[in-house]
């Protein structure tokens, strides 16, 4: 057992035992309270450059399986858990989480009081953290001196377009850090999908002859992206049915003159009641957000709020009054978490269908 440390910007240090890679890394630390699905979270591109603390007490239980990837490239900066539990390998999981993390150069620390960490981070908000061999002054100096990049999207999004053929509608997915759950849901609906880079121009998208547009999830602050993206969305929403998810939802809101703010307490879990306003139905969905759309900034002549988080009051969904364009903050594909909201993809395809009629 190798002793290593998680150190935080606030000066605290947590000794624990290493698993995964022995790399030294720095990132933003966040709490993930999903009770299952560590593989989905670890491979979700929205966690690019972040260190994930799992409140579920043990991870590794079911190894790594080929059906639970959210991306091929995994770029988180670390995994913190109370306990790493391995198991024997079988045809369903041919790789252990430990091996997987080693292959991807991601360090993990186990044996940490993650409940205390959850208390701390819930109280103090997100902060910088490092996983290091020695928790000396030098390590803290390094941590404090590190400036985290705000170029996350360009680092995780695909640099080149690629297709996922199907026989149905032609959907262009703009990748800001796409999680594969979205592709799986479109695939289940037999869509012909082309994934394009985040900075693809409107002209290029038009040349692909889309039936509908999906603006994907992604990491980071929407304000860090160039204004041209906003212009692209403003143009596309007038021409095609559009579905925006996660970071995409935030960009869609900005494109329609709403404001986005950083949450004091980020939320990465699936236990909040979310109300679908039109039906009054309350559902539980997979949420992972550090930013939210400012409810008061929404121009009610342009946008309708469709979903609201009953716990923290955050806007969870928007719809354009004039165009068949809508968005959700949460992940309607689940992975990890409930899949009850996957009917949003049907709604999107219905929009396309009625547009074509």
């Amino acid at each position, binding site marked *: 057992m190798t002793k290593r440390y998680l150190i935080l910007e606030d000066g605290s240090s947590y000794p624990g035992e290493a698993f995964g890679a022995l790399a030294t890394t720095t990132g933003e630390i966040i709490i993930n309270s999903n009770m299952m699905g560590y593989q*989905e979270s670890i491979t979700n591109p929205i966690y690019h450059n972040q260190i994930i603390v799992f409140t*579920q*007490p*043990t991870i590794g239980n079911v190894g790594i399986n080929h059906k*639970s990837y959210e991306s091929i490239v995994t770029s988180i900066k670390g995994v913190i858990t*109370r306990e790493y539990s391995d198991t024997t390998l079988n045809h369903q999981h041919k790789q252990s989480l430990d091996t997987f993390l080693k292959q991807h150069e991601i360090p993990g620390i186990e044996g940490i009081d993650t*409940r205390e960490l959850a208390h701390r981070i819930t109280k103090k908000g997100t902060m910088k953290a490092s996983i290091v061999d020695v928790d000396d002054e030098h390590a803290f100096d390094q941590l404090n001196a590190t400036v985290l990049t705000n170029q996350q999207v360009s680092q995780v999004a695909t640099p080149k377009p690629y297709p996922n053929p199907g026989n149905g509608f032609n959907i262009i997915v703009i990748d800001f850090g796409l999680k594969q759950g979205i592709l799986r849901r479109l695939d289940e609906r037999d869509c012909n999908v082309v994934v394009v880079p985040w900075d693809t121009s409107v002209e290029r998208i038009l040349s692909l002859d889309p039936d509908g547009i999906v603006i994907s999830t992604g990491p980071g602050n929407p304000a860090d992206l160039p204004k041209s993206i906003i212009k692209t969305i403003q143009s596309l929403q007038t021409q095609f049915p559009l579905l925006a998810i996660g970071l995409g939802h935030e960009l869609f809101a900005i494109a329609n003159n709403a404001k986005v703010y950083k949450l004091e307490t980020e939320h990465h*879990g699936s236990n909040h009641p979310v109300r679908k306003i039109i039906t009054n139905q309350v559902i*539980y969905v997979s949420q992972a957000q550090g930013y939210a759309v400012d409810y008061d900034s929404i121009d009610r002549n342009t946008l309708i709020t469709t979903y609201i988080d009953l716990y923290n009051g955050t806007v969870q969904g928007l719809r354009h009054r004039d165009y068949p364009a809508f968005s959700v903050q949460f992940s309607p594909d689940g992975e*990890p978490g409930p899949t009850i909201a996957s009917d949003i993809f049907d709604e999107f395809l219905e929009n396309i269908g009625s547009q074509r009629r």
Partner: protein
Amino acid sequence: MINQNINKVLIIGGGPSKVGQENELDAAVFQTIVSFKRVGVKSIVIDDNPYSIATTEIQPASAYIEAVTLDNVVAIIQNEGPDAILPTLGGPNAIKICQKLVEMKILAKYSVELLGLSKAALKLIGNPLRFSQLMKEVQEPIISSTIVHSNAEAFDLVRQVGFPIIVKPVLSSINSRRTICNSFDDLEIALSESFTDSTLNRCVIEKSIVGYKELSIIGIRDPNGTKLIINGVEDIDAIGIHSGDSIAVSPIQTITDSVYQRLRKATLNIMEQLEIIGACEVSFALNPDNNDYFVTKVTPNYNRGFALATLATGYPLNYVTAQLVLGNGFADIHLPHAYAKLTTFMEPLMDRILIRIPLWPFDSLKTVDQHLDQSMKSIGSAVGIGRTVEEAILKAMRSSQFNPRDVLPNMEELSDDEMISQLIHPKASRILVLIEALRRNYPVEDLSELTKIDPFYFKRLQKLLAVENLVVKEPLTEESLRTAHRRGFGDGMLAAAWQTDLDKVRYLGKLKNSVPTYKMIEPSAGEEAHSIRSFYSSFERENESHQLSDRSALVIGRGGNRLGPNSAADYYTSEVLIQMHRLGYKTIIMNNNPNSVSLSPQLSDKQYIEPIQIGAILNIAEIEKPAIVVVPGNRHYLVRQLRQYPDLKVVVLPPDQETGVTLPQKTSFAMNFFVTKDESRFINTVKLASGKNHELKDISHLAFPYAIDDDKLAGLITDAKELISSSYWKGLVQILVLEDQGLFKVVGIRPIRIIETIFLNRISNVNWIKMLVKLYTNQLTTEDLNKTFKNLSFIPFAEMKPKFPFIDLKVDQEVGSTNQEVGAEINLDPPEDE
């Protein structure tokens, strides 16, 4: 919103405890009454379980101490005219009664609303046909059985469903022959046997799911249709062993999120279809090879699973459900201040692991077939809660040891043949056999194949063995102490392994700062600010439990249920908590029985879910510094250990009977006294009867009154007082008298035992547990005593009979002894012929 038409609800109680039903139903009824009361709704309860806190704490006029039968329920409906009836907390019997009430249109006739179950859900219970219809409606898979008439038909069917399958004869002359077949050769033999057995020459063929994972999920739904999941439970043992006899884990550990989401969705769909208001448990069998699943059971009424869910998550399930059945939605419910906002509405999260180990009655019932199979044989269980699976397993093992001695379990004496046999055909000591097999270096894959237990759990046990090795190899080092603590080893265990005394281990712990940190059992994984006072220990960084009060009483709960007067002891413990609280103490309960009533959050100011072991008690005492430590019931070993710590003011109630009692072989009746240091006062006489010839050890049947001539009684009282004054007993003291051909003789003395104290409470207008608690805390004044005895009165008639588990456990025995009781019933109606 609350349904304004409901002001009075009849709650059907669970009746006497039995196999598969301890005090959890009573705890649920009690908590429901509290919740109803909060919104001004009156409860009426029918129950003949003498050990019911619900019928004790409710207004006496609202408690019907009667057998839970259709006739009695109908009579109460006619008498009381309740607005609604709640059948979900009374077990299968209450459901059956309610099904009849609906069939006979009695509810309609008296305009009594059915609460907690839709008509569809009510019909579903105990009706396999309705179950398969429901599953068809929601398009969820079940194990279907098909009747075949010929070999050809059977072979065709099996080609479709695949092996293994089970063949059963229809209307067999031989009881329940079930043959598992893995090949067409097996099938041919089984068919020829079964067709011969069947009086109709037909067989049932169904897919065998033996070896599948057994999982259950509990959800809750409000009248607005909002549904959330409370928790999931995974049985470590695969299907083939009754779920009640399996070691259970919450949350679910060995399936992926995508598989879990399918089960979650199925659970919610079923609840929607049944229009459940309140909680519902759905059980699944999951094929671990391909993740195909079947729904095996839907339980819309309260059972052990609901009690476990509450303890595991900290979600106030009973309180919330009571509000939901009255018409409130999740958002309308006002919880006590200890809960963070919107707790009712948030899906519970767990940052801890709970493991439940069943307890079997084989020590008290030597003739039972000890092999675990599809019928439940355990009569209790104990839980361990920890931050890791290993820690929870070990704490559950420590909690489930009847004898509170801490010893590293070992099964060296088991031969390899016997071990393999027990791996395949498990017995009660299952977990110890698994550990022993690993000790002998059986490969995990092979063990998993033999037992159908997920390799994940063997890996955890291996980790525990590695810690054990370290402990043995490096006695009294910081490294081994710290590692052992973090994996759930108790100080007593370490002291035994290191052949040193407990204090030395504890001293080392303090020196090296390896001391427990208590974690709150709350449903948000640390994300919300709760101030719930329910804790378990871990050895980590942050301690969340602090001294409750400088005047607190630490009450040591009974732990897992066993045969013998255990449900009575749990009731007694609850009464002690209530009375201590009323006397101004802040009460702290320590227990690990998920089905106990004494862990109801309304009964104490603080709860610790811990093994009942001296080390764990001392750790809690260190934080709480209790003014008094109360040990309800006779636990000689534990009490002796506690008395070694003079700082702990230990009170044993009833007083420890290890020495100083005179017990005759036979006795006819008892005279009860209340004894203070100054005087002894006569309370009453109670008839003691047993199945066998007045043998004291078999006595468990109590009756009141016991008529005796006044003169003779006066003489006996004088004799009795003399005997009492020469003993050192205080409080409730019992003099045993033998009647022989009209002659009476004082033959014994002892403190009044738990079941007889409860009986005394039930038949008189005095709470004798309160009197005892007052006496032992020096708060009983002479005026109190005078007043009590001046106003002392008795009901005209009562008898209390034990319940034995012989039929459930297929034991050929009719008369049982006290230590074989599983529960009791009380009857207050005088016999007709008097």
